[in-house]
Each structure stands twice: as C-alpha cells, then as structure tokens.
C-alpha cells in the first residue's frame, strides 16, 4: 500500500452513526459506565470534601496559605541560606526544601558511583569479590531503610565525643557531633573559576559534537582533547591565578567542647546520607549488572570482528545498548532516593517533610501542610521523569 497519491475518498470523514438509546449500543454502554464510575468517585470526594469544610468550620480553622507569611519561630539546625527563627514559615519551608535537595542530589551521585562499582564487582571473575558484592546486595535490600537509618544513627551517637574523636587522616574527625572535613575558604575567585569551568564544559560538548559530525562527513579525525584540556583545566586555572590564586584551607580544630572551622556534616545528615546511599546502591548495583548482562556476547564479538578497539566497542556498541536497559529503572531509583529522603523526619534531620510537619503542628493547618509536601514531591518526581523520558526517547532504539 505504498500509495503516493492521496485518494480523494480518504479526505472524507468517516460517517457517524446515530446514537440509539439501547443497552446493546457500544457507545451507550461506554457512556453509562463512565458516568457511573466518575459519579461514584465524585460523590465520595464531594462527601469527604463537605465533611472537611464542616469540620474546619466547627474547629474554627481558617483555610488558606496566609500562615506562610507569619513568623515561624522554629529553630533549624542546618540551613544553606541564612535563616533565623524570626523568619517566615515560607522561608522555613524553603530551607526544608533545600535540605531535601541537598541530601537527595548528593545521595544520587554517591549511590550511582557506589552502586555501579558494586554492580561491576558482582560481575567480576574474582569469586570472592563477586560473592561479597552479592551478599551486600542481598542483605541491604532485605532490610527496611528506616531500620538502617536508625541503625546508622545509633552507631553515630555511640561514637566518642569531640575530645576523643576518631581521626583516621589529617583534618578528618568523626565523633558523635558528626563528620568534620577540611574545606577551602570560598572566595570570588573560586566562583569565577567554577563559572569558567562550566562554560568550558558546555563549549567542549558542542565542539565535540561538531567534531564528530565533521569527522563523519570527511573521515578526518579531529582530536577533542586539546580543546577539552584548554577549556576545562587551563582556562579556569588561569582565571583563578589572575584573581590572585587564593588558597586557604580551613582545617577543623578542637576548641573547648566542639570543633571550629572546616566542613561540618551533622550526625543526622551523615546518617541519612549514609543510609540512603548504601541502601540505594544495592538496587543500582542490580540494575547495572542486569544492564551489562543484557548486551548479548555476540555484540562484543561482532564489534571486535569489525576491528573496533576495546574502548570503541564499549562506547559505540555496548554502552548505548546497556544504557537503554539501565536508564528507566535508574530513574525510578533516583525518584526513590528523593522520596525516601523524607524518612529524615525519623532521625531529626530537618527536611521539607519534617519542617512541614512541625508547621502543621504549630499552626493546625493540616491540609495545607500536607498539600505542600505532596506538591513539592510531585513537582520533583514530575521534573525527573520528564527529563528522563526526554533522555530515554533520545537514545531509544528505533524499532519497527
């Protein structure tokens, strides 16, 4: 049916049959079913809604988000942007959201790295390594995450105090006050260098795409690495040096009963990050393993037989196929980390759920508080899945 000319008849809309009011008419049945189901669910929702409105009236709870502008008066231990208890609820919730993102983003990066390593270890030819990875995956996946979080938190709380802190390498202290790491003092020069690095990365990416396109056209290979070196290393370093090359490392040191300086990770944050990372890594390891196994051995052989070098085999043939299997379940693991970070409330890390929960207890605005939690997570979930769907569609195998 490879018709190139359009048949005039195909422009005619298919005729519509009149609707008969009879149970044996398919469309009548469809309408009746839908009206019935939507009606029942609508009635239930309406009933719940009218009860809620009535209950709110009786309890004299004003609805609406007006409380967001009021003074929160709740102390928050960890904040990425300045905050004091005299700030508004809105700002408190914003801090909570940032805290959620802080643990989720770092957790996603660490769990991906850690999980990939374990997944590869599981496939290792070394029996001992593979077995250990297998035991890790099995045990970590068969225990509730909440239990693991409480366990890590109990271990951290059982650590000695700052004066007897564990001190594995210079500048790193682990105590019941959390983890202290050395950190550079941040100055404007660092921000400029970072900006240059980001722009350089973007430029390198475009340059590489263009180089590949031209190479395919004329067959002449164009090396990308000189550009990459220039944009990613030389330029940022030069900018940093031009700005006076500031380099002050802020070492944590013991003063009195606690540490001063350095990068601080509270025990709550550390336990949450540790729990989320180790737990999710167990799942990611299985996904990575399945992804690599999903590429048939024949694909390796065929690529090698064509004369591709091992690096090219991996990059051009194996990884594109493995990623196709890996990415959808990986997306749901990233979503899971984000959603599971809400367990923070159980060990006292102040994420969005914890702060919204305090807010709704203080103000009595239960519906609004829960609506905020749900809205935040729905938007995060939606953005991650939209991005991943877009990415997935880009790399999807074209099939008939």
């Amino acid at each position, binding site marked *: *049916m490879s018709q190139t000319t359009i048949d005039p008849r195909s422009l005619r809309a298919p005729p519509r*049959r009149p609707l008969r009011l009879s149970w044996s008419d398919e469309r009548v049945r469809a309408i009746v079913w839908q009206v019935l189901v939507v009606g029942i669910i609508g009635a239930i929702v309406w009933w719940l809604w009218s009860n809620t409105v009535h209950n709110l009236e009786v309890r004299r709870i004003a609805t609406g988000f007006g409380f967001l502008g009021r003074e929160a008066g709740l102390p928050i231990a960890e904040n990425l942007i300045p905050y004091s208890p005299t700030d508004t609820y809105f700002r408190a919730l914003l801090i909570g959201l940032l805290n959620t993102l802080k643990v989720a983003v770092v957790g996603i990066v660490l769990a991906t790295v850690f999980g990939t390593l374990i997944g590869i270890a599981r496939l290792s030819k070394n029996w001992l390594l593979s077995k250990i990875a297998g035991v890790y995956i099995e045990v970590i996946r068969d225990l509730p995450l909440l239990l693991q979080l409480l366990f890590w938190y109990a271990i951290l709380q059982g650590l000695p105090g700052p004066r007897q802190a564990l001190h594995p390498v210079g500048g790193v202290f682990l105590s019941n006050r959390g983890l202290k790491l050395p950190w550079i003092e941040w100055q404007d020069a660092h921000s400029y260098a970072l900006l240059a690095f980001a722009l350089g990365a973007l430029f390198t990416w475009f340059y590489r795409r263009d180089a590949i396109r031209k190479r395919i056209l004329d067959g002449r290979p164009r090396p990308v690495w000189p550009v990459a070196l220039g944009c990613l290393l030389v330029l940022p370093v030069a900018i940093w040096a031009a700005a006076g090359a500031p380099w002050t490392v802020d070492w944590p040191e013991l003063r009195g009963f606690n540490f001063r300086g350095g990068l601080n990770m509270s025990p709550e944050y550390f336990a949450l990050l540790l729990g989320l990372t180790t737990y999710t890594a167990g799942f990611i390891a299985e996904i990575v393993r399945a992804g690599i196994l999903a590429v048939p051995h024949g694909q390796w052989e065929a690529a090698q037989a064509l004369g591709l070098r091992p690096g090219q085999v991996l990059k051009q043939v194996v990884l594109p196929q493995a990623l196709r299997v890996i990415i959808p379940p990986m997306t749901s693991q990233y979503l899971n980390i984000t959603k599971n970070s809400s367990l923070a409330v159980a060990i006292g890390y102040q994420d969005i759920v914890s702060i919204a929960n305090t807010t709704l207890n203080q103000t009595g605005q239960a519906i609004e508080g829960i609506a905020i939690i749900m809205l935040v997570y729905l938007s995060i979930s939606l953005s991650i899945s939209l991005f991943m769907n877009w990415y997935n569609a880009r790399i999807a195998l074209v099939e008939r």
Partner: protein
Amino acid sequence: MSETLDHIASAARTDAPPAILLDKVNKWYGALHVLRDVSLNVALGERVVVCGPSGSGKSTMIRCINRLETHQEGTIKVNGIELSDDLKALDDIRREVGMVFQSFNLFPHLTILENCTLAPIWVRRMPKKEAEELAMHYLTRVRIPEQAKKYPGQLSGGQQQRVAIARALCMKPKIMLFDEPTSALDPEMIKEVLDTMVGLAETGMTMICVTHEMGFARQVADRVVFMDRGEIVEIGEPNHLFENPQTERLKTFLSQILRGH
C-alpha cells in the same frame, strides 16, 4: 472426514440467502485507505479463497467480518444480521462465525480440551459434560483426540493449528474464517492442516480463507478473490482465474507466487 457435519443445513447453495454480504465497505487506518469499496457476496456453503500481495487488505477484510476490526463505511451483513455498534448483534454474529488465526492464538494456560470447551460453556451455555463430548468429537475429526489433556506448548505447530480449528468448530459456527492458517507453519506441517481444511470443505461448511496455497484454492474453492491495494481486483472460478488473468496486477502476482514455489 467426508461425512457431512450434522449441524449444517445442507441446503442448495445457490438459492439460499447470502451468508456474508459486503457492500461498498471502506476502512481507513488514520489517513491510510485500507479497504476501498469492497463488495462481496458469499452464499451459504460456498468456499471462497482470498489471495493477494501482503498489505493488500485481505486480512483486514475478513477481520471486519467478525468485527475484530471496525469498518467505517458500507454494510456488512452476516446471516442477514448487520454489523454495527449493536453489541447484541455482534454477540450473535461471533457465535455463528468461527475464526482461525495465522499464529494459532491458543490459550497457553488451558489444556487442549479446556481451550475447546471454554466458549461452548460460557457463550453457548452448554453443560460441561456435553461440551466435553462435543470437543472430543471435533478433536477426533482433526485427528488429535489423544492430546486432549496436554497444553498447547507441548504440541507441534501443525497440531496446534488443528486444535485451533477444532476450537472454532466447537461453537458450531455456520461460517469459518481462516486468516493465513498455514503461513506460520513449517512445510511438512502445512499439509496436515490443509488436509483438515479440505475435509471441512467437503462437509459443506461456508468458508472464507486467506491463503497463498494455490493447490488448495484449485481443489476446494468455488471462487477466488484477488485483492490488491485495498480493492477487489478480480473474482472468478479458480482454474479460470489462474489461467486467464485479466489484469496486469494479477499476472504479476501469479508470476511471483509461481516463482516462489
């Protein structure tokens, strides 16, 4: 299998009302026009073979007859009942029309016997014992009664297709539709299925069969329909049609088929 099937009225073919009537049937998939003014009358007891190149709309046409696909224009009548959105009419038609698929479509989780008795019990509301006797009767006709307790996965392709035929017959249909029943089979199994179909034809069953098996067409078909690009191009008595093709399209098609064999 030469004895007549008891439930089929062995009335004279010519003066009976048409078992199937297609009148100017049109169908589109989106903008693609897949059936164009297809008109065809099939008399009770008549055997029609439909052939044509792939994508010519022959499968779509017979799938419209029991409404696995819906046509958008024109009339289809089966046993005098018109196909429409009326679900009661559809139930009546599906009860009268049996279908055999290219990929068998046996239900893998049911035994051969259960495959055959499911519809008689639940659609024809037949007592289970009676349905099983009926199923064994037809399984004997297709010569695999000993496999009744097995599952479809344990049978060869040819055996599965014969079970599929028996399953359709258990509904005591007046009309049988075959959608390329031998295309998915290995050559040595094609014959056993075709023999079963020939046997069925000899009982006077009304049949429409989409197939490329020209030998079968010559042996049993009363008429052959040649379709191309959604249209019926030629209709005729098999020997006449194959020996004196009127159109270029049929000539090309026949030469390709013959070269392929």
